[in-house]
């Protein structure tokens, strides 16, 4: 009798059950991320529109000069395969130079979005709550991909319309769409890579790393291919960035390369789904290895722990930066030669790089390279200073502070590790470039000039770290506001001379206090001032952290 009563009570799972609840999750994700996604959308659209307007304001002559730079190896690395370079219009310039960066921005957004809604959720065991509800196994990942698609689609459409509008309808609508849709699809490939990565590794951080490394690889393939051959060699066709650029928007638009992105995305998603069904919830495919039962003798202070937590990130970053700047160094003579000839009849160039005198131009150009190097190091400092906050919210700081560890000692340990790593990264960048330049016989500027650059930039970098730390100590909720300073510094550093900004506005950027030319003697007062600002900010940070409540979830 009981058997009869029980039999129908267990419904058989239907085919679609691994996806049930997807719709609700999509709505939930869009709601939860509405601010974050709006900011991304607005930023990318603003970038397109601003780029179009700024290029237009340069005038055709300056654009032609710009085209010359885009034929140098560095120009190709930073830009693209050089379609339409003989008739460098605003649209051509955006397509040639902008795609690499737009795909980078959208790619970062895509990777972070996927990881945030899948692996990071699993790690925090929040999604256990979700999955225990009637929600299918694949639903969170599928919902993340759907929302990602929606966001990229919105960005592509609005950006295309913005380009069309900003150019006063001079840029054909079809090409505008080709540009934005191609970039969006290329970026989604990296999101799809992240979906696969999330199945392989157990940690969100690892998955993010794999996603970003995929972009790095794509950039290397594309650059190498494009340097080998104008308009790209076979190598360029292995890179999603290349697929977007090979659409030749504003030159001779063709749509079929988008099929490559679409196929790549689908293949990766199928692979992700396949892997996902083969792993456990919360687990990865790569099992974590066992470790030692006792701590090494060196692990006996908060400083040692902070270093232990950051050393692998530091190591990989240092390696990446060393390779990149060494490579840039070896390319310097070539770039400079072409740049100087290009600058002769180019006012924009002269404004940015300080003139046509080869030595002056060289130093100006090197300074611009150093700006990139320094901003990358500043970004590292900001990201890594965020580790302290992560430790606090996870409750791990609490465990240490309940021992005989003072707040200053704990927080100070983090700051020391981040500060030293940042300075070392700056040294790695600067001397790697020097080594590359010397390797190809470029002895000027000499080592002393590079050393001056290294230490002056290091002082400025500590200001970014100081601000990040002070914000975290006093107003932890707004800790990420320090990114604004970074973006601002970039804009002022790159375009300050072009825009003719008022003095006071430029002074906000710490980098503005450094010598303008490469290896120029620094002003003592400026350096002392920068150092003082950094010291005050770091002091304030330590003080503020001593006085506030500890937060934990």
């Amino acid at each position, binding site marked *: 009798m009981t058997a009869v009563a029980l039999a129908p009570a267990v419904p058989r799972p239907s085919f679609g059950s691994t996806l049930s609840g997807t719709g609700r999750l999509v709505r939930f994700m869009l709601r939860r991320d509405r601010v974050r996604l709006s900011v991304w959308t607005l930023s990318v659209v603003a970038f397109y529109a601003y780029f179009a307007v700024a290029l237009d304001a340069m005038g055709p002559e300056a654009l032609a000069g710009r085209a010359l730079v885009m034929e140098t190896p560095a120009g190709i690395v930073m830009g693209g395969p050089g379609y339409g370079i003989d008739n460098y219009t605003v649209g051509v310039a955006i397509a040639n130079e902008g795609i690499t960066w737009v795909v980078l921005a959208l790619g970062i957004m895509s990777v972070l979005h996927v990881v945030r809604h899948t692996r990071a959720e699993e790690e925090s065991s929040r999604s256990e709550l979700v999955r225990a509800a009637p929600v299918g196994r694949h639903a969170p990942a599928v919902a993340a991909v759907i929302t990602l698609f929606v966001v990229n689609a919105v960005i592509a459409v609005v950006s295309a319309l913005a380009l069309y509008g900003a150019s006063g309808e001079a840029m054909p609508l079809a090409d505008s769409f080709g540009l934005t849709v191609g970039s969006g699809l290329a970026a989604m490939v990296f999101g799809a890579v992240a979906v696969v990565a999330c199945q392989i590794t157990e940690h969100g951080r690892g998955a993010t790393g794999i996603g970003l490394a995929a972009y790095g690889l794509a950039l290397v393939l594309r650059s190498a291919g494009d340097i080998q051959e104008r308009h790209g060699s076979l190598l360029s066709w292995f890179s999603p960035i290349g697929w977007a650029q090979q659409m030749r928007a504003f030159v001779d638009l063709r749509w079929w390369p988008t099929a490559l992105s679409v196929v790549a995305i689908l293949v990766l998603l199928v692979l992700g789904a396949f892997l996902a069904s083969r792993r456990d919830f919360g687990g990865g495919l790569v099992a974590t290895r066992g*470790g030692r*039962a006792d701590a090494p003798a060196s692990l006996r202070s908060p400083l040692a722990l902070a270093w232990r937590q950051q050393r692998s990130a530091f190591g990989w970053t240092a390696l990446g930066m060393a390779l990149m700047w060494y490579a840039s160094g070896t390319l310097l003579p070539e770039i400079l030669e072409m740049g100087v000839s290009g600058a002769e009849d180019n006012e924009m160039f002269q404004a940015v790089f300080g003139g046509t005198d080869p030595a002056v131009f060289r130093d100006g150009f090197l300074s611009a390279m150093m700006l990139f190097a320094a901003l990358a190091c500043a970004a590292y400092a900001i990201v890594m200073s965020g580790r302290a906050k992560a430790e606090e919210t996870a*409750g791990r700081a609490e465990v240490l*502070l309940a*021992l005989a*560890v*003072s707040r200053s000692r704990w927080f100070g340990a983090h700051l020391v590790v981040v500060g030293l790593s940042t300075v070392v990264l700056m040294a790695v960048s600067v001397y790697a470039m020097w080594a590359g330049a010397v390797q190809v016989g470029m002895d000027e500027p000499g080592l002393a000039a590079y050393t001056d650059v290294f230490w002056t930039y290091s002082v400025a970098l500590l200001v970014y770290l100081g601000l990040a730390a002070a914000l975290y100590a006093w107003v932890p909720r707004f800790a990420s506001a320090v990114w604004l300073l970074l973006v601002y510094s970039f804009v002022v550093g790159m375009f300050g001379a072009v825009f003719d900004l008022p003095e006071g506005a430029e002074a906000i950027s710490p980098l503005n206090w450094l010598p303008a030319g490469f290896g120029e003697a620094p002003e003592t007062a400026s350096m002392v001032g920068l150092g003082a600002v950094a010291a005050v900010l770091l002091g304030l940070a330590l003080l503020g952290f001593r006085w506030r409540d500890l937060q934990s979830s």
Partner: protein
Amino acid sequence: MTATPAIEIHDLRKSFGRVQALDGLDLTVQPGEVAGFLGPNGAGKSTAIRVLLGLLRADSGTARLFGGDAWRDAVELHRRLAYVPGDVSLWPNLTGGEAIDFLGRLRGTVDKRRKADLLERFELDPTKKARTYSKGNRQKVALVAAFSMDVDLLILDEPTSGLDPLMEAVFTEYVREAAAAGTSVLLSSHILHEVEKVCDTVTIIRNGTSVESGTLDELRHLTRSNVTAVVSDDPSGVRGLAGVHNFATAPADGGTRVTFDIDNAQVGPAMSQLTALGLHSLTAAPPSLEELFMRHYGDVLPGAESADDGADDTASAAAQGTAGAR
């Protein structure tokens, strides 16, 4: 007592924005005492413990450990105590063994023998990476780290959450051992039998205020016993006695079965009355702590007269217990 209390909290207040987490809390733990710290979810136990550890700053009132100020002298005081949170998060790239050593070294040297003993008793594999530990095993890492230290005070905030019953027994054993060695313990817990097993005194808090504190025996005294008896005569007279609650009767072999709860202070008169009615059989269940806690936690004790909020209810419960007036 003349010795400086291990923990001394007086009129402690702490608010988070509009939430008043602690509202005049009082708590004292004497040296060598094992104190239970109970209260419903959100009562403010963890907040009080965080203030004691100098992790949160009190708005007003005093929080002292060994006579020192919990906020100002935090680092010095922490040399003498160990803390186990209820939800342990470990460093992702450290193994459990490394975490234990590291935590131990921040206080002093690690006693390898003791660590090995503890690992064996708690059946913990120290070579696993933090992420691969289950909830209970993460908890064990923190427990092993705490018990391997030679300290004067253990502050434990729901330390056994996630432990299986066997491990809970091991935990109880180590707490007893620590107490025998003269260590004071503050144990916040929702597991009543655990508190009953190891604690000398208990403090119950609600809405940030202590509503009851004393030894377990004292607290038992405040509660009621459950009586079941079979008598030959009509027992309805018992219903009107002072301190009798939930009175019920049912026909039984050879008389009437009567059940009721009785305030412990009023047991005497009720017993003489029952005897006078011709007593056939009698069982009296000892007062259960559970009932006491229920009353303080949420007024769900059957027959509790008022459903006011914490403070009022306690006052009336206490008054009832001691005076038995009706």
